């Protein structure tokens, strides 16, 4: 089997007394899209920073392309940070030219969608286009690994679909992808997911595996407002979905008891990723 692009074994990072990442193991192979899920403060960003070599692990073994993260390794990866990491006062073409020089790559083509803004300042082209540019910049040098930190926040659905097309195309050409997100739709785009909570990896596998441990009940009633308030008061983890209410990790008996005499249809439904994440977070806290 080919060596994984990222291989982290029991990686820990402490800041003083605080353990941000606690014995996490993760690997990303060529052609694979791995999603890193978790709340803010779950340790996703710290883990990514360690993988990029911006932060050394306090403990554990971490290999990028089979070696400790280094400048040579970085030349083989493409990174799109949350803030995109573009230079606002440079034009689209100038941004790409700088990245080309830094990576010693051939001239990266300006993406078609940006052809009209080639000489426009990046600060003035709108967030959707900036994202496309950041992707083009990260892919320009033909990286073997893509690291994407919440790549599509603030993007309309069609543009988001197009960005994911790009990610999938890269993966099909053998690029490994590590992507952080906390949105369901992006999680289902991944081949494999790692769920982090409070610094630890608490779940791994496909979306179905992660959601499997959590149950949800749909509560349908004319008086959804009353049902919602009653369940919330009873301490049930409750969500609103349109005009029905969802109770997470609560059995029907408890839900009925909380509803009192309120007439309602109660039916088991598949939990969402978000519900699974919150349920885990609750049981952990």
């Amino acid at each position, binding site marked *: 089997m080919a060596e994984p692009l990222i291989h982290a074994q029991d990686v820990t990072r402490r800041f003083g007394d605080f353990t941000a990442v606690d014995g996490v193991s993760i690997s990303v192979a060529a052609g694979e899209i791995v999603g890193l899920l978790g709340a803010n403060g779950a340790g996703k960003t710290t883990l990514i920073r360690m993988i990029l070599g*911006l*932060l050394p692990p306090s403990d554990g073994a971490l290999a990028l392309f089979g070696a400790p993260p280094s400048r040579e390794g970085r030349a083989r990866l493409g990174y799109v940070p949350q803030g995109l990491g573009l230079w606002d006062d440079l034009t689209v073409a100038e941004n790409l030219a700088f990245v080309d020089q*830094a990576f010693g790559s051939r001239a990266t083509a300006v993406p078609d969608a940006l052809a009209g803004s080639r000489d426009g300042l990046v600060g003035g082209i709108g967030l959707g286009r900036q994202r496309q540019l950041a992707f083009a910049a990260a892919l320009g040098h033909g990286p073997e690994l893509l690291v994407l930190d919440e790549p599509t926040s603030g993007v309309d659905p069609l543009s988001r679909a197009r960005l994911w097309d790009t990610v999938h195309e890269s993966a099909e050409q053998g690029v490994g992808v590590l992507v952080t997100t906390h949105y369901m739709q992006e999680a289902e785009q991944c081949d494999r997911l790692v769920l982090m909570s409070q610094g630890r990896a608490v779940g791994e596998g496909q979306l179905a595996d992660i959601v499997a441990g959590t149950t949800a009940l749909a509560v349908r009633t004319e008086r959804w407002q009353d049902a919602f308030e009653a369940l919330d008061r009873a301490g049930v983890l409750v969500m609103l979905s349109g005009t029905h209410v969802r109770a997470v990790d609560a059995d029907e008996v408890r839900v009925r008891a909380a509803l009192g005499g309120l007439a309602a249809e109660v039916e088991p439904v598949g939990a969402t990723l978000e519900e699974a994440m919150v349920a885990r977070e609750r049981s952990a806290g």
Partner: protein
Amino acid sequence: MKAMILKEFRELRRDKRTMAMLIVLPIVLLTIFGYAANFTVDTIPTRVIGPGAEQAAANAPELFDIGEVDAEATTDDALAWMTDNATEVVIDTTTQPPTAYVDGASLFTAQSASAAFGRMGDQVEVDILFNPDLETSWVMVPALIGLILTFIGTIITSIGLVKERQSGTLEQLAVMPLKPADVIIGKIAPYFLLASFDMLVVTFLGVWIFDVPFNGSPWLFAIGAGIFLFVVLGIGVLISTVSQTQAQAIQLAIMLLLPQILLSGFIFPLDAMPTAIAAIGRCLPLTYFVEIAQGIFLRGAGLDALWVPYAVLTGMALLVFTAAVLRFRRDLAPSAHHRAKSKAA
């Protein structure tokens, strides 16, 4: 409205930098203008030479603080002392009537001195050296070059660097396969070049428009300006490493710039300040650059006369610039830094 006012005070209390400006700035300004801002000079370092030295020293008005009295010294010695800035005034009794050489590069001192000699009537011939018409611009332009370099080096550089941090592109640079040295040099060199260019423009304009003489060695001056640039660029980089936003960087830079403007001796003479405040002035890099610039421009002084400010500036440059590069490097290549530390431990 009451709620608004209360909110504003609460917020201000939490903003340490603004609080510092609100409290420290008035105190600093009050101290400087109360004690240091003194155009009138109370004592003027003076030497007396020639056969009538003893008698001239005894007759000199109180204003003149007679240091050396040397009956043997010649007029050439006197002129050499003046060029070296060893003293502000020399009374030469080898001529009849005696000649008083006054250093025109020290504007306020020269004005006080010539006024005092004027009151003595024909007893002395006054010869104002280096700046015979006591032109303010002659004294100001060389010092202004230092101020401009400080401005670019400190404010512009720190803004440029903080922008990179604020927009998250500093992290992007850190993950690119660039050497930290490339990033640091690449980031600072443009400001170095821009500041050098500005220096040339101001020098030429000063000489051309204001007829400021340039009596010394251009190369010596260029070297001094270069060393000084390293100091101010280093300060700019240091400011950027402790600032998260451009506004913070500007605030901090202003707090460092203001004392330099007021205490470097280019507006208010250092000699006229109380010792404690003059001592603060002597900790500031601009003070030494002003000394170098005025020395080279007006007196045509060489390294033998200016070695002290050169040595001090070089020391400052080494210290500040090294600290700046190390801090900047820590932001760019934390791995290497930590690894080195854990090995050492």
